[in-house]
């Protein structure tokens, strides 16, 4: 399989919204990201960092104002027909399964909806049953006539996933797929995503604010801050040896194993909150909240932090990428010394 095949790629993707008062919110401000079949990529960040806008843009629900989204090497076009064909390949799983299901539609109708939209009429009940049992609702026939309100939260999310699977997509984009579910049910839904990856070769982009979720199921992780990815790479490396100050702060406030605690000693609680996407600071966008700047550790590169915007990370030549002047400086220094 070539690297391009069935891969969802974003290159220098930008999405801007006009705000009242003539300001412009740069929700997604230059993102490179690849999601291939058979891998789960976690996109993590705080609310307001642009991760949901990025997901919607990857699905063609939002138009990019710059850069490209491509699938299988073909750039996404926004004609009705092109979008429809694209959506057989890349499917969405929403956060709140209760809202994602029409209360007046039975489970059967909810799952068959995709088939009807794409005019796939042969063996509809068989396909619906298969998708339901793939999503772990067995025996499927027992759920056909149920209404969403008769199901538990976990079962509803399974129905939503079955509705996506029925079109046999190669990728799923899941926006906080377990955030609205009860704690004990979450693991089951995540196990399902993991099983689908292993058994069906399904790829997934999982949008989450929960780094623990990434640790549970993701192969790679991208940390997003204010419209841009600040660090990405294999989960083991990014989460156990985080290099960007923001990732380090995020990891430090979570329960972590002793090995990780050794790397990130004290909890670093950042002051303040995520700035508005219409007021992205110049230079390094994380600088105003950066603990390294505050502590003076970054004094040697401070002129870069204040004056020089960082390059968009990727496409992945190196497995572990970090958008930080200080980190680059340290690494270059280490290389020269070595």
């Amino acid at each position, binding site marked *: 399989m070539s690297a391009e095949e069935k891969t969802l790629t974003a290159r220098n993707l930008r999405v801007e919204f006009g705000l009242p008062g003539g300001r412009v919110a740069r929700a997604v401000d230059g993102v490179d990201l690849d999601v291939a079949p058979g891998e789960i990529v976690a996109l993590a960040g705080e609310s307001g960092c642009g991760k949901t806008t990025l997901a919607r843009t990857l699905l063609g*629900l939002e138009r990019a104002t710059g850069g490209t989204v491509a699938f299988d090497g073909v750039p996404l076009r926004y004609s009705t027909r092109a979008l*429809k064909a694209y959506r057989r390949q890349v499917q969405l799983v929403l956060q709140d399964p209760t809202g994602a299901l029409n209360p007046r539609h039975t489970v059967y109708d909810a799952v068959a909806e995709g088939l009807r939209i794409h005019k796939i009429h042969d063996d509809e009940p*068989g396909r619906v049953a298969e998708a339901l049992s793939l999503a772990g609702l067995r025996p499927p026939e027992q759920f056909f006539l149920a209404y969403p309100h008769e199901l538990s939260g976990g079962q509803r999310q399974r129905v939503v996933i079955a509705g996506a699977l029925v079109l046999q997509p190669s990728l799923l984009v899941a926006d906080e797929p377990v955030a609205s579910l009860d704690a004990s049910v979450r693991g089951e839904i995540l196990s399902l995503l993991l099983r689908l990856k292993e058994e069906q070769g399904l790829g997934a982009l999982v949008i989450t604010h929960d780094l623990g979720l990434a640790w549970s199921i993701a192969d790679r992780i991208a940390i997003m801050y204010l419209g841009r990815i600040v660090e990405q790479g294999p989960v083991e490396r990014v989460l156990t040896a985080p290099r960007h100050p923001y990732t380090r702060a995020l990891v430090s406030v979570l329960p972590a194993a002793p090995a990780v605690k050794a790397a990130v000693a004290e909890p670093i609680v950042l002051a303040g909150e995520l700035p508005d996407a219409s007021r992205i600071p110049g230079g390094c966008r994380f600088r105003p909240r950066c603990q390294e700047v505050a502590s003076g550790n970054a004094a040697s590169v401070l002129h870069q932090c204040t004056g020089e915007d960082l390059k968009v990370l990727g496409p992945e030549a190196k497995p572990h990428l970090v958008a930080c002047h200080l980190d680059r400086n340290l690494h270059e220094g280490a290389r020269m010394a070595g």
Partner: protein
Amino acid sequence: MTATNTLSPRALRWARRRQSLTRSWAAYRSQKTGMWGLVLLGAIVVLAIAAPVLVDESALSVTQATGGRMAPPSAAYPLGTDETGRSILALTLWGSRLSLVIGLTATVVAIVIGTAVGITSGHIGGWYGWIALRLSDWFMVLPSLVVAIALLAVLGRSMATTITVIALVSWPGTTRLVRAQTLTVQSRPYLERAKALGAGHWHQMTKHLLPNVLPLVLASATLLVPSAILMESSLAWLGLGDPGVVSWGSILNRASENGAVSAHAWWYLLPPGLAILLVVLAFMMCGRALEAVFNPRLRGES
């Protein structure tokens, strides 16, 4: 998957519809006023349909009238007679047919226009939505009787014109209601899901928006029928109805024109008036009950 072979999608759909219908009916049945309204309405409809059997059409003919001029109720004429000697009972019975037909037809036309404009303007939005909204606003603020009189003067007095006029002035209310509900449903994540599945506008409007606004539309329609009947009566009372047919409004119109009020001929005025009242009441009772059944907020569900 052997078990699925016995369940075709169509059978499933019907099973589901039956299920939801049974549930709605059970909810409706628990509404006492709604049940009384339904009984009353049923009785009125039965009488309207059975009118030709109960009273021969010849009873409406002025030339074949046998009773006295504005005679009070008697054994032969239980509700008295009009100025030409026709039985008021016969007139009222026959009048119900026209009142109901006009009321229902005008409502259906208004609902269809209102729903179509409401859903499309809410869903598509943009300049189309803006124009549709302004248009419905414009129709809403027009004084309906003045428009009706002007239109009738241009188009001539006939049943079709009356229906058109009533429909024309009543659709904006439905549009408003449907648009508001469309916008609410529009923001639900399941529309986002449908879009992500590849659904076009038509699919979204027919499969998600329409089924969600329809119950409310149905409930509002039952409240629209009485207002259409009242409007028809007003127009006919003003002498703007179809002169060739008998409706409750036209009976009242003739009564007032022929001095029934000064003659204290209560039997001439009361039956059509009470009939209008009863029909309006019956529809209102049903409509309120339907609203309670279909509007989840009134039912206390989220």
